[in-house]
């Protein structure tokens, strides 16, 4: 008997040592599925106690307390647990960046050049990134995979996180064009003070405005080009802006400073783009203005230090509540490179501790994100007709103390919550004879 146990343990260790090549994407589930007896957080603010979600062919058919569960369908009883829409990481280099420091070969997130309008992140998205499975294990099921670098970085795409390859992963291709707004603040050279090296004396405002003029000129020329019926020569950079002008794509403006955001408003006025601010740490100062121009915000860093030493010590924590109050459509993101984005639900938790209701905070990482990314017709809330992208947690998903994910479904498929880290955990539980 004892020998048998050791044999089984060795077998388990053998599997574990393969790292995560044995974590398989789930096969499509065609039949009916019932997730019952849970507290359902719909994602739009509504909470259903003791509710049931009926799923068929990957879509939600109905959600409610009174849904009857017939015999025959697959039933997942989640009594006493919390049910949420799959969380969405809206702007990320997930699948483009594996080891940021010291391993250049593993990085595909930042291209050379200033105006990379025609660059598309989706073609480089690596579904086998070791990081992806750790996100699913924390309830994050969708991500906006975004290129970086230059002034215009190119197009992002929304992916679902349980896929064999990028075509399989693509949830909405090329949903956004990403622009890095020039900065109005010039930072001092970091070591200059210590070495007494004089600082550059260029005027950052002048430099920024010059660059912005260049961007506007590009848009104006592209607009003209796109109105031509035939072109003497094809310009891929202009062609790539077509979706932006036809509003099939939104303009994601990466900006933090108020002046940068004011310029973004300018882009709405002149070109009629659908503009989303990404980052936006200072947006609380002009929340009403953003509301007025229907500009949505994806907040970059909930767990950040205040911008200035005089700022309220909890400013970044309470910025979401200030946007909520002003009626701005906003989502929360997790850009933290060291914990690799898996703390998204806790960013929402902090926002809830500092002024949002828990359901509002949840909405900021589900339905609001879906709206901003242009996928709210398919996901973001647990409502009939949408994809069955569902997460089940032991307790409050926003609080790390209770946020333990036990089930996750993408398009009705129950996906594996295994990952390399859990396997290493098992491996060393085995080594130390722990249970």
């Amino acid at each position, binding site marked *: 008997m004892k020998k048998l146990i050791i044999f089984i343990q060795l077998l388990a260790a053998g599997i574990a040592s393969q790292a995560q090549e044995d974590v398989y994407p789930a096969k499509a589930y065609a039949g009916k599925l019932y997730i019952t007896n849970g507290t359902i957080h719909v994602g739009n603010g509504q909470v259903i106690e003791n509710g049931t979600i009926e799923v068929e062919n990957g879509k939600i058919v109905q959600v409610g307390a009174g849904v009857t569960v017939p015999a025959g369908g697959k039933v997942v009883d989640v009594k006493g647990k919390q049910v949420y829409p799959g969380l969405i990481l809206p702007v990320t280099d997930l699948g483009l960046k594996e080891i940021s420091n010291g391993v250049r070969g593993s990085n595909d997130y930042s291209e050379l050049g200033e105006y990379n309008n025609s660059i598309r992140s989706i073609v480089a998205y690596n579904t086998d990134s070791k990081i992806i499975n750790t996100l699913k294990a924390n309830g994050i099921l969708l991500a906006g995979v975004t290129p970086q670098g230059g002034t215009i970085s190119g197009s992002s795409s929304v992916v679902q996180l349980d896929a064999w390859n990028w075509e399989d992963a693509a949830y909405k291709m090329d949903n956004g064009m990403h622009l890095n707004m020039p900065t109005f603040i010039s930072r001092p050279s970091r070591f200059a003070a210590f070495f007494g090296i004089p600082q550059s004396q260029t005027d950052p405002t002048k430099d920024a405005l010059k660059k912005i003029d260049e961007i506007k000129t590009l848009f104006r020329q592209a607009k003209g080009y796109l109105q031509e019926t035939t072109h003497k020569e094809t310009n891929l950079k202009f062609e790539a802006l077509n979706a932006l002008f036809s509003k099939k794509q939104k303009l994601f403006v990466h900006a933090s400073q108020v002046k940068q955001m004011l310029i973004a408003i300018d882009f709405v006025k002149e070109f009629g783009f659908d503009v989303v601010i990404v980052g936006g740490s200072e947006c609380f100062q002009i929340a009403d203005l953003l509301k007025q121009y229907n500009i949505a915000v994806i907040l970059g860093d909930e767990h950040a*230090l205040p911008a*200035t030493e005089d700022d309220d010590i909890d400013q970044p924590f309470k910025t979401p509540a200030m946007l909520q109050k002003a009626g701005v459509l906003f989502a929360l993101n997790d850009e933290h490179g060291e914990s690799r984005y898996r703390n998204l639900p806790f960013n929402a*938790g902090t926002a809830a501790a500092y002024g949002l209701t828990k359901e509002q905070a949840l909405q900021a990482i589900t339905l609001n994100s879906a709206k901003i990314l242009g996928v709210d017709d398919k996901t973001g809330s647990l409502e009939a007709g949408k994809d069955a992208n569902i997460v089940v947690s032991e307790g409050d998903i926003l*609080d790390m*103390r209770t946020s333990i994910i036990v089930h996750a479904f993408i398009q009705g498929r129950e996906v594996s919550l295994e990952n390399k880290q859990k396997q290493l*955990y098992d491996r060393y539980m085995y080594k*130390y004879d*722990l249970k």
Partner: protein
Amino acid sequence: MFPVIKLKPKAHMREYCFFPPGKFLFLLGLIFMVNTVSMSQVTFPVNGIADPQVKCFAFTNATIVKDGQTTVPNATLVIREGKIVSVGASVTIPKEAVVIDCSGKFIYPSFIDIYSDYGVPVPQRQGAPFDYRAPAQLTSNIKGVFGWNQAIKSDIDAAKLFNADDAKAKPLRDLGFGAVLTHQKDGIARGTGALVTLATEKENLVMLKDKASAHYSLSKGTSTQSYPSSMMGSVALLRQTYLDAQWYKTNPAAEGVNLTLKAWNDIQSLPQIFEANDKWNDLRADRIGDEFGVQYIIKGGGNEYQRIKEIAATKATFILSVNYPQTMDVEDPNEARFVSLSDMKHWELAPTNLAAFEKANIPFCITAADLKDTKTFFANLRKAIDNGLSESKALEALTKTPATALGVYDKVGSLDAGKIASFIITNGEVFKDKTVILQNWIQGNKYAVKDENWSPVAGQYTLQVRSAGGNNSYTLDVKSISDASIIAKDTIKTKFSYDGKLVTISFATEKKTRAASIRLGGTVNGDVWNGNGVDADGNNVLWTASFAKAGAPAPDTSKKKPQGELGKVVYPFDGYGWDSLPQAETILIKNGTVWTNEKEGRLENTDVLIKNGKIAQIGKNLADAGARVIDATGKFVTPGIIDEHSHIAAASINEGAQSVTSEVRIGDNLNPEDINIYRQLSGGVTSSHILHGSANTIGGQTQLIKLRWGAGDEELKFKGADPFIKFALGENVKRTTSQNNNRFPDTRMGVEEVMMDAFTRACEYEKGCKEAAVPATTSKKKGAAATTAAAAVRRDLELDALVEIMNKKRFITCHSYVQSEITATMRVAEKFNFTVNTFTHILEGYKVADKMKTHGANASTFSDWWAYKTEVQDAIPYNATLMQRVGLNVCINSDDAEMARRLNQEAAKSVKYGGMSEEEAFKMVTLNPAKALHVDEKVGSLKAGKDADVVIWSDNPLSIYAKAEKTIVDGIVYFDRTRDLEMRKKIAAERNRLVQKMLGEKRSGGPVAPATPSFQVVLSCGDHDHHDGLITVDVDEHDATH
């Protein structure tokens, strides 16, 4: 009205003959300025006819201010051959004296600036601008018989570099300076300064003292050598050099000749001047001095008023500038937003600095050296006077104090017989708004400053203009040397210029726009001016103007600005600072859920009594009549959070220039004004272990602090705690991100050998020290041999720290990631018979937890960081749980100024990952780090007798919804969420007041500079990105890889 200067015309003419023809043109420019050239050197051959002169002057009828204390009215000053002969109300005027009537004039000793680089070349940094990825420069690139470090330039001799430079001397003379102490402002040790006058004579004669001072700083200047690359490295280099110089006195054969150390020893008896340039640096410098028995004269930074009590305790004489921050243009609210309140407050209060010194009775000198525009000197000095500096103290700070500090008060600094004849003549009290310096006499030579103001030109003159057509008479009303009007039916403004010698007047005879003008030019002869000119019709005229009567005194238009409201000095000098420091209270926290971390565990409805900074009692229904009662019903009371790995509150973190820098100490460069102290208090943190970075294998000595917001740098230190040191392994220390690393080690094989080598050397060193310490009588070696043995041991601060480790008097916290390096390090320690106290980061600790347990190490890790570099690929969030279950003492640390304020949440992640109990999880940020840091007798749990470091939380402290409502350190409430809300309002109001004040200055026409964001430098380990504010500057990667 015009001064009676009796000159022998012949002598005056002869001066030209001293000089070769080539200098003639140059001299022409000086003719009006320099009346006499008095001195010539006897060893120099004369080309021409010798012209020995005894030059003697008597300045009569003057108000003579001999020094800050003594003013003699209606007095005479007699000088002869560049020296003062006599001063007083009744002195005999020698027959040969040229008498200068100084009625209505004031005479003061010329000023002395002892922080100058006049006449000394400014060295330029050689080579490319600093590049942190470039290969390290490990030794000095100065060739020759010098020391190892390029920033120690004790052999520099300003006297040898000095060249008199009239273009630079004149602006200083115009301000009233007569002598300066000049030195080369470059490097950490800067060699000697020379005391020189500002006369334009042969250098040999203007130099009063060739070696007058020795100079130091904390800035390595133009040195291109990698070491030191940090504030604490500069401190350590100075300390080691003091020791090396002592040792060098024994002529150690191993060192050969070292001119740098020789010079260092030679100049120790001189006045020692330290350029510190900031209030905290002042204290750092003074502590170095205290250690080696040196009292520095400290060049301050202008912000000393913010910590005047600590500054006074240095007992130093200070050198202070009257350079103030410029008014900023805060018109644009988006720009004004990034100017910190502390910068705005400093802008307002900087002019109070000198008065603060006077009030605190700290001796100080004034320098003009830092001024961008020397012309602002008097205006700025007057600002200091408007802000409470007395005029007599100001004079003393420009004369007696600097002279005394240099030990040359017998030569300069007052007007007393026998001293050098350097003095200024003014037309009023020298610091008054309207007063001008007329002449500055240096070493008995006159240098005109504003001679044209010698006689008050203002008054009414009768102007007669004679032409063929007849005579015209006008009344000319002269207001100043450039302003005069013709008074007739209409008052007609003239174009007027007067320099005391020549005068020109031109005016239109009618008040019409295009009226033709009469143009007159002539010479001045006392009260009567005359000359020729051309009238409006083009006819030649002659003219005379004679003084008729004094003009009506001009109304005082200089606006005496109402001093108005000034902001308070707060502690620390940040928006969130205290008006007065908070005190320990007797506090009774009632009816909370108390997490004790003791065997009692969590106690419901329990009280905690705090008294005298300690926890007095824990129990139910406690009472204390004198206590402030805090109702904690529904709240949670816990010990304060202890962060085992932090990089806040320091001026520098990484001395990465060498692989072994155990000599540097974080404690040498604490910054108690880091706003992150306050922010972390708001997250319940009460103690932080401030670690050196991870740029090198054997890093610097760490400092455990308590977050006493408002305290001084020394008071932050956790008293009585065991000393620690930071080690680091892996990618950072082998400079993985550098393209062309040339610093050993480049692999983990080399990292292990760095430690082996260092401890081997430390063993030899310890042995040598022990032998040397054995008294000669008991030593096998006798007499001289024993002395030689003692001398042969060079005290080495780097090895001292390693010896302490081996003797279990200092403990290691070692940055580490992968299992191979963890094991290798434990084996090195075991070879040298000590234990690695703590492995920090330790992301693969779970792989070797059993080995660590056997070794006896603590573990301090992140909850869930991974993937950002190769060595963290196998990091798992279950690490803490696994290590804890194997039996290690496990801590969760921040290594991040932001995350430190959420350490309770980071601990809670172990409940999620691996199912640790809540109590055990919370211990990972309280009791366990206290144990790892050997302070669990004092902090880490709630128990009677322990320090009252207590947090009151709104919710279960492991919950993301929990907020620290009050954070108490040593029984003092340093953070209170209610007070914090009040502070926000106060900050907003104070910011608004200062913005309005700056705008007022701008509107009244004052000069403004663009609004400069108050960048905050955030220091870190050098390991990963940090999530800081918009205007923070993260210096980690530079530090780490350099």
